[in-house]
């Protein structure tokens, strides 16, 4: 078995005194794609936010080990530089900031962190154009301001594009499928599949199993009321689609919806 990329142990976290994660444990190895599913309010997005280091969350218990480092001790930008990437559920607009410029700055932060030479504008342009081609995206994306005036689908695609450029070791996709029509969903899924490698891993956070028709996960976990109540293979997702979440939540002894 390979060295795990991420080990979450009994993680408790919340906002303003309200506990949302109540003991999450999860281990992800290189080469694996995990899907984290669960009903609304189960804590999926909170887990993504805590892993990426968003402000405003209190961690009361547990630990997260990322590539041998205590993840929770790292500043958000250092987590990113260590190869942790979050594809946002709601990507933010940054008016006036050119996408290519933004990505170059981000990419060069990674390069600096790795002790590699930074790319200048010309070399970077060659590099991103390859990525644009890889994902069948429109070149136009590179000229626009970061997410400014993008449609919902364009924003999600842009997240995957950034992921392709930054080549993270662990990518967390927070509800990347929400709000996408089937064509956009396919493009996004194809992109993610192309980026799967034996030395990286993905954590797909999703409410619906639909995405998993296109990105086939190795493991599926169901989060309910702040705990993972069931883990399994891909067939678990299919079962969820058929039976909904209720049978699991009742089994877990938690108050039903």
């Amino acid at each position: 078995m390979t060295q795990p990329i991420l080990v979450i142990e009994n993680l408790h976290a919340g906002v303003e005194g309200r506990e949302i994660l109540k003991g999450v444990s999860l281990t992800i190895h290189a080469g694996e794609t995990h899907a984290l599913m669960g009903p609304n309010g189960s804590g999926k997005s909170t887990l993504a936010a805590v892993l990426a280091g968003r402000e405003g969350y209190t961690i009361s218990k547990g630990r997260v080990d990322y590539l041998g480092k205590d993840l929770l001790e790292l500043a958000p930008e250092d987590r990113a530089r260590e190869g942790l990437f979050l594809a946002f559920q709601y990507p933010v607009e940054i008016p006036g900031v050119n996408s290519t410029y933004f990505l170059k700055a981000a990419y060069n932060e990674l390069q600096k962190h790795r002790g590699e030479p930074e790319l200048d504008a010309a070399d970077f342009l060659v590099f991103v154009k390859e990525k644009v081609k890889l994902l069948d995206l429109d070149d136009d994306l590179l000229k626009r301001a970061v997410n400014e005036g993008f449609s919902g689908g364009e924003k999600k695609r842009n997240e995957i594009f950034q992921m392709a450029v930054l080549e993270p070791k662990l990518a967390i996709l927070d509800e990347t499928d929400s709000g996408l029509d089937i064509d956009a969903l396919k493009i996004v899924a194809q992109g993610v599949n192309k980026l799967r490698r034996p030395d990286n891993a993905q954590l797909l956070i999703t409410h619906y199993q639909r995405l998993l028709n296109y990105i086939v996960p190795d493991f599926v976990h169901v989060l309910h009321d702040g705990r993972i109540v069931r883990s399994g293979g891909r067939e678990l997702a299919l079962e969820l689609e058929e039976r909904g979440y209720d049978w699991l939540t009742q089994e877990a002894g938690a108050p039903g919806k």
Partner: protein
Amino acid sequence: MPDADGDPLGGLPATDFPPFTLPGGVHGLAVKPMSTSTDTITGIVESDYKYGFVTDIETESAPPGINEDIIRLISEKKKEPEWMLEWRLKAFRHWLTMTPPAWPKVHYPPVDFQDIIYFSAPKKQGTGPRSLDDVDPKLLETYEKLGIPLRERGRLAGVALDAVFDSVSVGTTFKKQLGEKGVIFCSFSEAVQEHPDLVRKYIGSVVPPADNFYAALNSAVFTDGSFCYIPKGVRCPMELSTYFRINAGKSGQFERTLIVADEGSYVSYLEGCTAPMRDENQLHAADEEGKGGIFNFVTKRGHCKGRNSKISWTQVETGSAITWKYPSCILQGDNSVGEFYSVALTNNYQQADTGTKMVHIGKNTRSTIVSKGIAAGRGQNTYRGLVKVQKGATNSRNFSQCDSLLIGDKCGAHTFPYIEVKNTSSRVEHEATTSKIGEDQIFYCNQRGLSTQDAMNMIVNGFCKEVFRELPMEFAVEAQKLLGVSLEGSVG
């Protein structure tokens, strides 16, 4: 109050706006406050002002204070002709009868004009350097630190740079190429010596000495600046630029710049001002204004006299404790065009009250105003603009856009647009927005590996994009750096 239509340039109460007398021209004036306290107040300044180094060059300074003898001394040091001295003395006598304006939305302790040094020059200067090779290497180093390597910059960017170090212009590049086109670009002192007729003809024609309090003071004691003359029909072959540099402690820098673009000519001129920080100023500033120790009061005015003429102002204001500046355009010739692009950033306790005046007099005149105000820390940022369309200025257009960006919740942004339209065929549009840098934006950048400071700079620069794209590439880069420096320590 004169009738606005009778007096095309009046019309606003002097208490509301700088008095407006005669058209045209460019002036600069920066006054440094004196320090009174020697208490140690470290910790107030959250981060160092990167451009706050002081160059170790011996300077020759006049004793502090202002009187007729000092003015005579300045004039004598600069070997000026008698008429120039008389002009200065006349301005000084008028200044004595004036009081500082009270209308800008800035607060500062009274400036003691007798505690300012009005003349300071590098000692080794002698007759002045003839070429870049004669320039003290330390001066060149200073410019390097500021990111303006004179030689490289000139060569690479095709920019003719008249570098003003304290009171003496130390190097003028590209003089030869300009000379071939008949363009004169030199220090003001040199122009007084070598082109006295031109200087005498145009000095004060746009901003007369009696225009306002600071203009009068400047007229009396200005020590150097740039002079530029573009002959009829000539398109100036390169961007002209002056970098004002305030170096000697407790010295005022009184710049006077005069640009004359004759009929059918074209010129683009850029002016930058950074100032080193000194402990004394920081100490002084710590109780009231925070760390920016420079007071910056400027009168700038352009006069589009001929038909189809155009003046475009682009300014980036940052670093001063107090900024008070309204580059203006008087659109007198038919079809003339005025533009004003501005970025003003205030951090800590800095205050800026800046904007423009567009006075439409000729037919089919057009003006555009784009103002971007950024307030961080406890900074206060005010846009104050006047758009005035006279009766005869039929079919004129103005578009104004004033955007404010707030960083944190202790700063303020204010917008005071004054609009007067005296005919029915003209159209004036004003748009204003105020936004705040969101934690979401910062976190998004953090998640892509950018530090919070870098994220802030990037967001601010994006906000200013419409103005920066008016600047030639190399100056845009510089402006971005400058904003970055000014934002240091603004992250809570």
